[in-house]
């Protein structure tokens, strides 16, 4: 049984803007998948369906055998850890420790255990010394890692990352990629960064205008320059 299954999923925003149309795909346990596509292609919207933040207008998403709906959303959110595009959206409490402990506390973990879990996770990511600091006292790279820590602390089975390398400098980007390569969770990465996608994932799913236009090994996608140009995944600088 696939860990993630999306069947004929369509989504229209309340203002009537269509975002996803008839998406069908499956992701096996331990698989590493990149969601590629230009801005506005529906990558972030699709990720939010995996975590139950958005409900499909048509079709459905299944996580580990459970259809994502109001009844299953708590269990689904424990299984799918979603890291948002902007770490500032994810770091909303006065200290890093409180931010990282937020998920376990919501899962009913006692406060002292949640603090221990949070400290262990921060330690794993090399952020323990910053545990009492507020997010606005962290660098961009540290903030990105901290956002990841807020999700890793709950030991999810799936890591859903939205533009994880966006706005990182070369060193922080490499550090994040190295760290993610070592992890064994199922990975779904929405990104514009083809190099990072290649370093992390073996399979590529391309969205364009809310529709799935390709689901192939990433190498095959990256080696098809005509395809990359057609779907705005790469563009030549020559007119």
């Amino acid at each position, binding site marked *: 049984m696939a860990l993630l299954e999306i069947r004929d999923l369509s989504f229209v925003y309340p203002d009537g803007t269509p975002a996803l149309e008839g998406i069908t795909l499956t992701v096996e346990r331990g698989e590493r998948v990149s969601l590629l596509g230009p801005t506005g292609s529906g990558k972030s919207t699709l990720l939010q369906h995996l975590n139950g933040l958005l409900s499909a207008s048509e079709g459905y998403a299944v996580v580990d055998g459970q259809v994502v709906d109001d009844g299953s959303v708590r269990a689904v959110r424990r299984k799918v850890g979603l890291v948002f595009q902007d770490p500032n959206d994810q770091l909303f409490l006065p200290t890093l420790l409180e931010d990282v402990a*937020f998920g376990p506390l*919501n899962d009913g973990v006692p406060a002292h255990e949640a603090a221990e879990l949070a400290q262990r996770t921060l330690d794993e990511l090399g952020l323990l010394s910053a545990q009492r600091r507020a997010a606005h006292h962290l660098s961009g790279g540290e903030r990105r890692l901290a956002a990841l820590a807020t999700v890793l602390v709950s030991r999810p089975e799936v890591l859903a990352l939205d533009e994880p390398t966006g706005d990182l400098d070369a060193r922080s980007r490499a550090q994040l990629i190295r760290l993610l390569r070592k992890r064994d969770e199922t990975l779904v990465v929405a990104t514009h960064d083809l190099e990072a996608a290649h370093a992390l994932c073996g399979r590529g799913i391309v969205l364009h205008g809310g529709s799935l236009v390709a689901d192939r090994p990433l190498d095959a996608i990256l080696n098809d320059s005509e395809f990359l140009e057609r779907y705005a995944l790469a563009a030549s600088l020559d007119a």
Partner: protein
Amino acid sequence: MSFHHLDQYATISSPVTRAVPAVRVLGTATLACGAALLPLGAWVPLLVLFAVVVLVGGLARLPLTAVLARMSGPAVFVLLASAGLLFLVPGEPVARLGPVAVSDAGFERFTFVLGRAVVALGAAVILVSTTTFPQLLQAFRQLRMPNVVTTALALAYRLVYLLVDEMERLQRAAKSRNAGAGRATRRRLLVSVTAAGLSRAFARGERTHRAMLARGYRGEAESLDATRWELRQSLMLGTMVLFVASIVVLAHARP
């Protein structure tokens, strides 16, 4: 934008910064209440409380200039709010400011209100200079403030920093295109930057709420255990409360 300067004195090791935050909050409240409860004209007890504030500030190793600078903003407000006392309290005129006279009773009340404000503001400035916002929240939780209030304060704290940062970026972007020459244009710029900032704050609030939901938030935010009180801290606080209370009682009991 760097915000390190705001907490620069909270990291200085001192008997004040080593005290449990809740003790600091209660100590500040005790001094402020003590000053407020003193009877009019009790200058000596007020000076004693002021001496306590100076002593605590000294123990916290706070530079006098920093304390005065942080007091200046609220002090202007106190001055404006209490200036009416000079003219409205009946008594013998001691000076004239145009058509209105300053009465002796009004002057006494005005200066005493200022004295009380200096003690209360001094204590408050020492508290916020030696205590980071997360520690203040921890204190409020220890003091059993409702969870919904402390959670709202915690979220507001982060949002304010993000909002300030975003407003600054908007302002810089506008200035980089030569906006803001002339008073009227500057005013218009401020209005548009504020409007854009608020709209961004709203959008960020939405995204933050989603991020909270994604991590299992269901409308009730739990918090980590607060630091426990030590006996020594309770004794320190108890001594201060008794000391201030006895000053207030003595001030009321004087003939």
